[in-house]
Structures are given as C-alpha cells and as structure tokens.
C-alpha cells in the first residue's frame, strides 16, 4: 500500500532555506509531540467538551506558539513571527502529516485574528492578538441564532446604544466553546428600521464575562459537549467593542467567512483539515480480516475504496484548477462556491463507510474497550454533521450554487 505522502510539485521547487525550515519542523515535531493522554483527542475545535481536553489543548497550543510555529505570518509586535506565509503553510503541512493535536483556538486564529490584523485599530490589535496565539484568550463566534441557523439576514439579537455602552438582548446558538471563551465575535441588530435587513447588523468583539451573558452547554448527538447556547439579558458591553461602523456588520461578517473559506489567506495556522483520513480508511481495510484475508483483497471493497480515492483526488485537484482562470471561465465561481459542499459531504460518506468495514464491531462506541480505534470513526462520522450542517447546511449550499452559479430562480 502506498500510504507514504509523496512530495507535491510545490515542495519539489522549494529553496534550500525552505527545505531547512521544513526539516526543522519535522525535527521539532519528533521531539515535542505529546504522549497519548489516555483520552480521545478532538479532531476539530468543535469537540472540546471537557476541562481535561481544554487544558491539554491549551498547553499544546502554547507550546506550538512559543516554539515559533503559530502566528508565523502575524505582525511581530503582536506576538506573531513576521515571516512570509510559506513558512506557516509548511509548519501546518508537517503538523497535519504527523497528526499532532490541533491548535484549538480556531475562531481566534482563523477568523477574529485575521480580521483584526486586516481592519482592526491599533488598540484592537494590541488588546486581542497575542492572547489568541498563546491560547490564553479563547474566542467564540456568535452568528447563528435559534430557529434560523443558516440565514444570517434574520438575526434577531438586538444591540442598543446607551451612552458609552451597547445593551444586548437575545440569544445565539452553536457557540463553539462558548462556556470557555473570553471573547465573542458577535453579529447583532443595531437597527431594525432599515429596509434591507442586512444593513441593520453590526459586528462586535464582545467580552463573554459581561454581566447578563450566560451559556448553557449543548449535548451533541455523540453524547459529548463542545457547543453552548448563549443568552444575552440586558448585557452591557463597552461601545468600543463595536468593530468598524454601525450597520457594517454584514459586510464584516462576510469578510470573516472569507478567512474561514479561504483557510490559508490570513489564518494564523494550526487549522486541522485532516488531510490524512483516506490513509486511515485504507489502514482499516488492511487490518480487518474477512474470510481469512485482509478486506483490502475483497474486490467489492476495493471498488468502493477506489471510488473514494477518485473523489479525494478530484477535491485536491479542484484546488489547483480554481487557480487557473481560463479553466474557470465557464460557470464562474462554481468550484469556489462548491468547495464546502463537496468536501464535507465526501467526508461524511467516507466516514460512514469506514464503519461498515468494521463488521460487528461497528456497533461499539467510545468508551468500550473493544471499539475499533477507541470509537474514533463512530464519533467522527457523527461529528461530521457539524460540517454538513454548520456554516450553511449542504442543502443551503446547493441553493446558493444553483442560484448564484447556474442562475436558477429562488424558491
């Protein structure tokens, strides 16, 4: 089985300096990867469900940052490394390859941080950036609300100006690490009069410690925690928490989502994309015996695996094609807008398939001593719905693609 990761053509073109750096990262990982903590570590930042896991990840992120492998392209004066992006990309690649634990402060690293660097005031940069990198200040995101998850234009949470403060009322849902977070990027309605509902939204960097903000943990279908519902009851936050201007919230939120979607553009690094999951699936097929031979020899299984590998390669190559304008002139934005739908649905089906390879053992779950890989796949499959539902469900994504790429009418 060819599971070793070959060099990409980008890697083959690396300069000596970059090669040296890569070797340094590999060496660092070898000496610093933490030992198995004895509990199942999260695959994404949305699965931080206990203090134990939180402490572990916080310590790890601090170690990565203090060793110079996080925030490498962020400005030096705010805790970053002030280096070209390529170095962060290489560090990320090698960390992914070695499957080290995740750098969990994703909303800070991937959303709030890049936004503050690009558009924030000096005060905001000074106040927020370093804590994001060290892991001391956990960030959460307050966009979605109960009853209209994918439709941000319908946001009901109110922020009313009262002197030097805003008074917030309403609630947010799916707040990842809401119970641990120090700050929230909050989208709230400052004007309900304007005709276009998007113009009435404003964007805040809100302190979660303010009086009147409470969180209630949500138990996920996996049985774990990781999200909260967040309630605002006459919560007062300083007016200086407003980012940009009143009424510009929608635009800032969209810019923030671009960081998430573009992943590499401004993010501090450490984002877990789980690029090695197909190798894990193939390993199960190698390890599991059926009829006295590895399942990997079974023609039906092989055909299914090849189908997944074709799909994986298409996902990977799409990232290459999207950079060639002449090959994207037909149905413009098609690849860019379908990235999430293609990727998340692929992982969902692939993880579901991984369970079928386990035979009777697929009935076992996290906590059972006989569960394959500690129940990793059972949990991964169910957790995957956070990606096919969160950030706009697959069905909403299909609407967006249908309407914006194909020009189909709205329903």
């Amino acid at each position, binding site marked *: 089985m060819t599971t070793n990761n070959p060099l990409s*053509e980008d890697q083959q073109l690396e300069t000596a300096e970059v090669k040296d750096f890569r070797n340094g990262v590999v060496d660092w990982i070898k000496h610093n990867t933490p030992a198995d903590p004895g509990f199942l570590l999260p695959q994404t930042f949305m699965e931080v469900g206990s203090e134990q896991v939180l402490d572990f990840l916080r310590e790890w992120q601090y170690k990565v940052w203090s060793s110079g492998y996080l925030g490498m392209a962020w400005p030096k004066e705010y805790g970053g490394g002030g280096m070209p992006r390529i170095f962060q990309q290489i560090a990320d690649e090698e960390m992914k390859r070695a499957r080290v634990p995740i750098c969990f402060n994703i909303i800070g690293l991937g959303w709030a941080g890049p936004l503050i660097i690009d558009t924030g005031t000096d005060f905001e940069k000074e106040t927020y950036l370093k804590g994001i990198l060290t892991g001391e200040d956990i960030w959460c995101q307050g966009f979605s609300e109960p009853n209209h998850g994918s439709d941000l234009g319908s946001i009901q949470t109110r922020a009313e100006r009262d002197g030097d403060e805003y008074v917030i009322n309403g609630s947010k849902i799916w707040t990842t690490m809401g119970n641990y977070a120090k700050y929230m990027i909050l989208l709230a309605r400052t004007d309900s009069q304007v005709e276009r509902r998007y113009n009435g939204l404003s964007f805040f960097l809100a302190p979660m410690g303010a009086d009147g903000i409470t969180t209630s943990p949500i138990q996920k279908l996996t049985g774990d925690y990781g999200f909260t519902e967040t309630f605002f009851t006459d919560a007062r936050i300083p007016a200086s928490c407003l980012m940009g201007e009143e009424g510009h919230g929608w635009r800032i939120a969209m810019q923030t989502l671009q960081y998430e979607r573009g992943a590499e553009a401004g993010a501090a690094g450490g984002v877990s994309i789980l690029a090695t999951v197909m190798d894990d699936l193939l390993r199960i097929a190698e390890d599991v015996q059926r009829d006295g031979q590895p399942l990997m020899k079974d023609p039906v299984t092989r055909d299914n695996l090849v189908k997944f590998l074709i799909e994986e390669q*298409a996902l990977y190559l799409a990232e290459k094609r999207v950079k060639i304008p002449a090959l994207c002139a037909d149905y413009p934005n098609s690849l860019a807008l379908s990235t999430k739908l293609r990727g998340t649905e692929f992982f969902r089906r692939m993880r579901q398939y991984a369970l079928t390879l386990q035979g009777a053992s697929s009935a076992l779950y996290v906590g059972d001593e006989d569960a394959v890989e500690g129940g990793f796949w059972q949990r991964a499959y169910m957790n995957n719905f956070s990606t096919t539902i969160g950030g706009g469900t697959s069905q909403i994504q299909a609407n967006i*693609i249908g309407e914006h790429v*194909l020009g*189909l009418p709205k329903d």
Partner: protein
Amino acid sequence: MTRSANLSMAFSDEQAMILDSAQAFCRDKSDGDAVRSLLKSETGFNQDVWDEMVALGWTGLSIPEQFGGFAMGIGATVPLVESMGRHMLCTPYISATIAAQAIVRGGSESQQTKWLPAMVQGTIGTLALLDNEDWGATSTSCVLTGKDDQLELKGKKLLVHDASVSDFFLVLAQHDGAEVLVIVESSQLASNAIACKTLVDETKRAANVDFTGVTIQSDAILPSGGAALADLRLIGALLIASEATGSAAGALDTVVDYLTTRKQFDRLIGSYQSLKHPTVEMLIQMDSARTFIYHAATLIGDGELDKDTEIACRMAKAQAADALSFAGDRAVQFHGGMGFTYDCDAMLYIRRAQWTQQQYGDPQHHRKLLAPLLLD
C-alpha cells in the same frame, strides 16, 4: 493525502487560446439544427466543417513539427475535444487523433513520413481494436499469418469508429505470438467488408469491419505498435472523457435553460429544490470530470505514459462517463413529458451517455485497473 505523486495542473496561454477559439467555433458550427440535420446523414459530419478544422491546423496539434504539425502534444487536443462534446459537433477528429498518436508512438520513420503529413492535411485513420464487446480483453483472435511479403489478416473487428470515412485502419492482430498494429488502407478492403451499425448515439458512426483475406507486406506493421497499445488505450480514454465532459456541460446547459423558462403551478420549475439540487449535482460531477481531464492533459507527454498519467486518464474516464450518464438521465426526467420526445435535446445527451460509457472502457473497468495502482 493522495496517491498520485504528481498532482499538478497547468494550462498555457496557447491552450487557453485553443479553448477560446474551439468554443466559439463549435458554438458557431454546431447549433441544434446543425446537429439534428446530421443525425440521419451517411457520414455523420459536415465535410465543410471538417475542412475548416483542418485549415485551422487542429488536425496537426499533436503531430511533430517535422511532419507539418504543431507538436503541442495530445494535451492540447483536450480543450478542442471538450468543446466538440459541449456542442455535439461530430467529426472523425477523435478517431484520427488517436490513429495519429499510434503512428507517432509506434510507427517507423517511413510510416510516419507517409501518413503524418497527410493526417495534418485531413487524412483520416482509425483504430480497429475490439474482437467482441469486452474493452478489458487482453488478447485478440484476429491473426496475421504468413511470410514477410505475403502476410494475411484473418478476423473481424467490432464497432470501429468512423470506419466508413477512414482512409486507413490500424488493426490489432496477433503475429508471431505478439500483439501488433497493422496498417490497412481502405482500398484494400473487400467491397462488403464494412458493415455499418445502428448506434444509440445518432451523432456517432461505427461499423464492424471484416479484415479477413486482406494481404499486406511486413512494412505495414507498426514496429512499436504493440508496445504503444496500452498508452493508446489511455489516450482514447482521455479523449472520450474530454468529449463526455463537454457533453455533460451541454446537458447541464439544456437543463438550466428549461428550468429557468418553464413554469408549472405558477412557478419557474428551477425554483423547486427537487430539481435544483440534482442539477447542482450535475454541475459538481461535471466539474470533477473537467478537473480530471485537464490534470491528465497536464501530465500527458509525448513519451511513454507514467503511472500518474495512467491514474489521471483512468480517473478522467471513470468520472466523466458517470457524470454524463447522470446528466443525460436527469436531463430527460427534468423535461417531463417533453423529455420523452425525440424533439427534446435531452435525447441527444442520454444517447451520447450510452455511447460514452463503454468507449475505451466503462467506469468499472477503469476502477478495476486503478485498484492495484492505488491500493497495492
């Protein structure tokens, strides 16, 4: 990660120009009326259009410069073939391009000197590979027997593309225990040797050809034809995949056009998610096919094809054939009662899908051959 070492994709300005002019040319020469006017015609193509393509130099794209071609490699033909598929423009281009590659890759210098300049000028060749319906067959029952200057072919070939308009054939035969490709000129065939078949895809032409009794001399054997055979099958798969990708986009265009104009229950039917979402799936599947054909076009060179190129070509064919099958099938369904009629263009695509599915191997055939490359 992924199992191909070389996952690059490049597209030169020259290729972009070919894509642009091919799209414009095919749109211009092959509107709905033009396509339908050729369905019942004998040759299946418009000679004037073919002559223009020759004049534009497209028949020489992948032929070396010393024979009058442009030496841009087989990858340069991908945008052209894709555009032809998009607009259902049929000519013997795919057959002729694969045949030219056979001579480029397997032919002797004198064979190349004789045929390649002529092919740049529009001479048409085609491969005669199949003994039966199995694209996975690893041997042939067609035999070449006799002594050097008195060799005789015995055997029939199935579904030879564009047989009745071809000037020559490259026939796969057994000779002295090895597979060889033999050049047979159409003038050498018996008068009743070509039996045209009724095809599901009425834009295509193919025939069973009986080569029994054709006598040739040993200089008609391609010296490296047998060795080039595996690569020629991959090139065939890539070109069929390219055409299929274009046709899948054509089917999608047709569906989108209907969904944005047809009203039922006072609503444009494209507003219904039961139609909208599968249409998006057509786009996504077509997009993946498109990604694969241009990846393969990037990797494919003039030399022997390596493992990554083989993976790319097989993935392209598997993906494109499935994408078109899905698009053609849904195109008929989404046109409702209209879709059940011969007048509806969905008919063209569902029929093209059946043709494409099998040419140079169906998706399962390619996945079966991908398995050892990816898993072992």
